[in-house]
């Protein structure tokens, strides 16, 4: 048992899905649980809320045991004081926005409930819509009512299950901004389940990467995105640019580790934990690939220069994603992004030659965990 403020859980189960997760979330911290469907993200939220009981483990909140399988403690959902925003909001369809919120205000004297509900509706910018039924509200407004209802309980933990998945892009951005603002006002642990990696990286203090119920890695978003512990994490985080290579040498003075990528030598971040001759996987985020100006070569060309032919160009607004087939290593494609105006200025086109630098501090090595088929693919 822990007396630390915040949420601490370690749960294990075999059914209905395998789950083996440990999470520590401090008060005021926002943790994003990411992973593919069926990875156990929502199951963790349900266990914290008391809507599902894992076979083994414990859940403590602010030092209070909500679940302790060994001591046979299992506090009912009603007594856990959890704010839960469900994926489809689960508003009470027969009650107005105001009454949806007052339903969660049972801990207050009856006379104070309407006033508190009005405050909460004001907090989520829904003044004037108190009497609307859920089906008279837009998706974004429903999400706000669900959030206000979750906060009404004065929760000790806030659980958000894909809260932005059912709204359009514009509303999503707005709601995400509001969540950032709201976090400053409430100092409780927040668990956010999301499929959207950009959302996780933008909102969370830490990311837990889950796969088949097991935590593969947790850390700050930039750590998980730039230094994944395994190729599996890199693939789950959709990093692309994952290849195999052999470690050649380490240089502590120059702060790099050199790898041999099918004949092409590249310098990566200094990682002495890998032995010379060891087969590794390496990854480089698109953000650490710098394209050289085609008209005027720059000094950056000295840093892991790699040349190739453009095989695909996809422009999405300000950013253009470029796929480049590497010349020196056949059948390998690097993906990087450039500003659309830079792509235009450099006259990038399919079939054009281009040279990029793989920035040393972005080239990250990982233990090889590949099957022969994957090796052939990489």
């Amino acid at each position, binding site marked *: 048992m822990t007396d630390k403020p915040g949420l601490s859980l370690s749960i294990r189960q075999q059914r209905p899905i395998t789950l083996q997760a440990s999470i520590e979330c401090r008060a005021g911290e926002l943790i994003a649980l990411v992973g593919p469907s069926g990875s156990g993200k929502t199951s963790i939220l349900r266990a914290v*809320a*008391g*809507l599902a009981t894992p076979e083994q483990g414990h859940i403590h909140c602010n030092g209070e045991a909500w679940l302790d399988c060994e001591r046979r403690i299992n506090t*009912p*959902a*009603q*007594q856990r*004081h*959890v*704010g*839960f925003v*469900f994926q*489809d909001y*689960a*508003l*009470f*369809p*027969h009650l107005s926005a105001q009454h949806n919120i007052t*339903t*969660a205000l*049972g*801990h207050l004297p009856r006379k104070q409930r309407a006033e508190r509900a009005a405050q909460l509706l004001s907090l989520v910018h829904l003044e004037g819509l108190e009497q609307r*039924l*859920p*089906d008279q509200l837009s998706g974004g407004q429903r999400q706000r009512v669900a959030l206000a*209802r*979750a906060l*009404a*309980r004065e929760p000790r933990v806030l659980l958000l299950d894909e809260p932005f998945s059912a709204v359009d892009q514009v509303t999503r951005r707005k709601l995400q901004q509001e969540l950032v603002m709201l976090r400053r006002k409430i100092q409780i642990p927040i668990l956010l389940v999301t499929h959207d990696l950009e959302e996780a990286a933008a909102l969370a203090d830490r990311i837990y990467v889950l796969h088949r119920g097991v935590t593969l890695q947790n850390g700050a978003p930039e750590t998980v995105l730039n230094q994944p512990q395994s190729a599996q994490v890199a693939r789950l985080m959709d990093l692309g640019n994952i290849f195999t290579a052999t470690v050649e040498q380490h240089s502590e003075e120059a702060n790099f580790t050199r790898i041999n990528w099918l004949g092409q030598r590249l310098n990566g971040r200094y990682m002495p934990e890998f032995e010379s001759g060891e087969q590794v996987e390496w990854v480089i985020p698109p953000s650490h690939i710098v394209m050289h100006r085609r008209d005027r070569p720059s000094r950056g060309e000295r840093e892991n220069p790699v040349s190739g032919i453009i095989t695909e160009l996809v422009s999405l607004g300000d950013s253009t994603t470029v796929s480049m087939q590497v010349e020196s290593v056949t059948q390998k494609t690097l993906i990087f992004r450039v500003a659309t105006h830079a792509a235009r200025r450099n006259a990038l086109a399919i079939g054009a030659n281009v040279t990029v630098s793989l920035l040393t501090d972005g080239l990250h090595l990982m233990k090889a965990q590949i099957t022969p088929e994957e090796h052939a693919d990489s």
Partner: protein
Amino acid sequence: MDTQALELSLKLALLTCLCLLPLAIILGRILAWSEFAGKGFVEATIALPLVLPPTVLGYYLLVSMGMDSTLGSLYHSLTGRHLVFSFDGLLLASIIFNLPFAVQPMQRAFEAIPKNVREAAWCCGLSHWQTLWRIELPLAWPGLITALALTFAHTLGEFGVVLMVGGNIPGETSTLAIAIYDRVQAFDNDAAAYMSASLLLISFITIGTVYMLSGKRRFGHDR
């Protein structure tokens, strides 16, 4: 017009509704949300009165409520009254043959409530009783109204089971449907026509009123 028969029919229909309502809520809720061994068997048993000829059902009820039966003798020892050919027995039979009309609409209504709406209520701090009263029953209202309407109307019109279990004792078991049959047998066509028209009107008004009520209270998910 046999007002005694009319009163008896209305009394039987109202009491049947009153007794079946909590039973239908409990059974409908369990069948909607619980998975257990033999659930199919329970559902089939509840649905049996829909397919059994009333005389068959009446026969088994008559046998199981007679003085020689455990139920009949137990009831007699407890109350000093008989179950067969009495209003008490008629009420019990009415509850049994109306089970599917009350339970099935309730079950469908509870099934239509999303699971996470109930879970949201628990997360809001509502106990299971409060969730039933404040969330589930208002959402299951159309099913409840349908169950009451069907039970009420079906009780008013039931003939075969009533005749088998209750016979034709004026003031005790002679309902309006039995009285109509009795009048036809006695070639009193005027009385039969008058009572038939009354039964038709009462049934129509009852069903019309409850469906109007249920229409006004349909919310969100079943709009």
